[in-house]
């Protein structure tokens, strides 16, 4: 779907994601601090196009009379910080572990891969629930926790690529010419691992935004009145009948974010064929 030299499949999701991020972090500032504050007298006002709407509350208000536009954008700050932060963390951790496992191999490889298998075998949400109940749910905690939820995929992808590149003839040739491990990793392995991990990163963002939502939905996300998409949805659930907009906006944002993250991942995968087959095997598309 290349048109006029622009790859729409890449730039559209990227554009939407960037727009979402900018809106979430800049939007609330433009809207002013007052909009996000509670005004119990204005509670459950519908969006602007429905009867009973309140001026200056284009997407309606929630059960505390807070502006849904502001809430949704603020909620995005948390969800996106956690999603992007944890995905980045997961990919970094995964690349290091994957390189160690794939390039150096031996018992490191066995230990890391056994760990990965086992980690995948247990339902992460269960572990996360217990962990959050103990250590609380500040944003940094959530990022660390979800990093643990996402490290396996980049580790596996990195390992597979590293393993393959390592035995590639041109790497053998470079080794034959006396190249050090560090040189080989830097010059040959990393350049192949990075693009693949960018793809993984993209998919992971989507997955982790959802997990953050699920944790918040179960009441284990950030502390109210701080918003996150998951806890807005949880709080809005009882109002589904009369004030659907409370659930609708953050749910829409999650769906859009996940779709864009996945689409971005797909586009990137199409762009770099290095490791594409590995990603196809490993990544939840």
């Amino acid at each position, binding site marked *: 779907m290349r048109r006029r030299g622009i790859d729409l499949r890449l730039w559209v999701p990227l554009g939407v994601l960037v727009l979402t991020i900018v809106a979430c972090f800049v939007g609330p500032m433009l809207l002013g601090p007052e909009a996000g504050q509670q005004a119990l007298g204005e509670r459950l006002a519908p969006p602007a196009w429905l009867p009973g709407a309140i001026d200056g509350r284009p997407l309606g208000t929630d059960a505390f009379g807070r502006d849904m536009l502001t809430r949704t954008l603020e909620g995005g700050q948390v969800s996106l910080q956690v999603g992007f932060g944890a995905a980045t963390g997961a990919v970094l951790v995964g690349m290091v572990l994957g390189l160690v496992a794939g390039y150096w191999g031996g018992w490191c490889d066995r230990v890391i891969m*056994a760990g990965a298998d*086992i980690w*995948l*075998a*247990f*339902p*992460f*949400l*269960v*572990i996360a*629930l*217990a*962990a959050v*109940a*103990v*250590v609380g749910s500040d944003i940094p905690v959530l990022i660390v926790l979800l990093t643990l939820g996402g490290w396996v995929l980049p580790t596996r992808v990195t390992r597979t690529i590293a393993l393959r590149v390592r035995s590639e003839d041109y790497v053998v040739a470079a080794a034959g010419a006396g190249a050090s491990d560090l040189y080989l990793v830097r010059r040959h392995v990393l350049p192949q691992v990075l693009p693949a991990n960018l793809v993984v990163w993209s998919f992971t963002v*989507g997955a982790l935004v*959802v997990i953050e*939502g*699920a944790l918040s*939905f*179960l009441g284990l996300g950030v502390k109210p009145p701080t918003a996150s998409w*998951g806890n807005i*949805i*949880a709080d809005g*659930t009882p109002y*589904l*009948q009369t004030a659907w907009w409370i*659930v609708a906006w953050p*749910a829409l944002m*999650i*769906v*859009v974010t*996940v*779709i864009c993250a*996945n*689409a971005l991942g797909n586009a990137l995968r199409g762009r770099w064929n290095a490791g594409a087959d590995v990603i*196809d095997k490993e990544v*939840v*598309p």
Partner: protein
Amino acid sequence: MTEMTEGVVASVDPGATAPPSAGRGRRGRRARRLGAMTVRLLLTLLGLLTLLFFLVRLSGDPAGVLAGPSATPQQLEAVRAGLGLDEPLLAQYAAFLGDVVRLDFGTSVFSGESALGTALGALPATLVLLVTTMLVSVAVGIPCGVLLDRGGRVTRAVVGTSMTLAQAVPTFVLGILLIYLFAVRLGWLPAFGSGTAATLVMPTLALATFAIARTARMVAAELEQVEDQDFLRTAAAKGASTRRVLWRHALPNAFPAVAAALVVEISYLISGAVVVEVLFAYDGIGKELVDAIFARDYPVVQACVFVIGVFVVVVNVVGDGLLRALDPRIARARA
């Protein structure tokens, strides 16, 4: 025509030909591999239980719940002592380990019933949910995957979009929508509960949607991958119809990879089941576990995690065997 006598017809591939004793050897190897896998998983289970033991204990206290909000501090202390919670943590842990080895998880702090019994009692409902989810995701996912790969332009676009959406809508959002639609608006299905077929529908749908999309995508990807393989061309060259090539040759070859992924995904499904069970008040082990975590009902938490862990181990072992049955190559590839 020819009388080509072949001395030893051995394969060039190492290990491909089995010497006479290979039957036993292979079985032995397999048993050893399964054994190693089981031991590894069980050890991890122990690790996980340990982790949970400390996590849960560091964060709350069933004594408070037992004593109630209007108890006096003295009463609270008395309850603690009664539960053995005043002993050093390590002593508690040692006792716990001893009990676990004997499969004695104690009794629920609140109901007084056997913790393991409680966990096991909640398992069948979850199993039913998981099985229906698997069935639905395979039954719907495979045709969708075929359409995704083979359908016309419009079909592909429609199915592709649905699958994209299905993958992007979180389970909890989907669950809420389902309740609203089917229970509140249409009144077709009970909004909650467990035990009847009707109560199974929405949790299954909520849980299966993602799995359907996942299966469909995998089937499509695998079909695309096997598409150019010569054995499909061979089948067509023998005179097989397009349908037959698809259903008899392409899909069966795509299936093992899909099935393998589904087995791995049992843990994702269990995570999803936790959310779904809480949302639909479905009495499975996921809900039991969440309740127990919130209430700090240690014995039940531990028993639930243990049961889930063993379940995962069993699924992996059985799934592994099943895959072997599905694909004669795997035995060699992994050997």
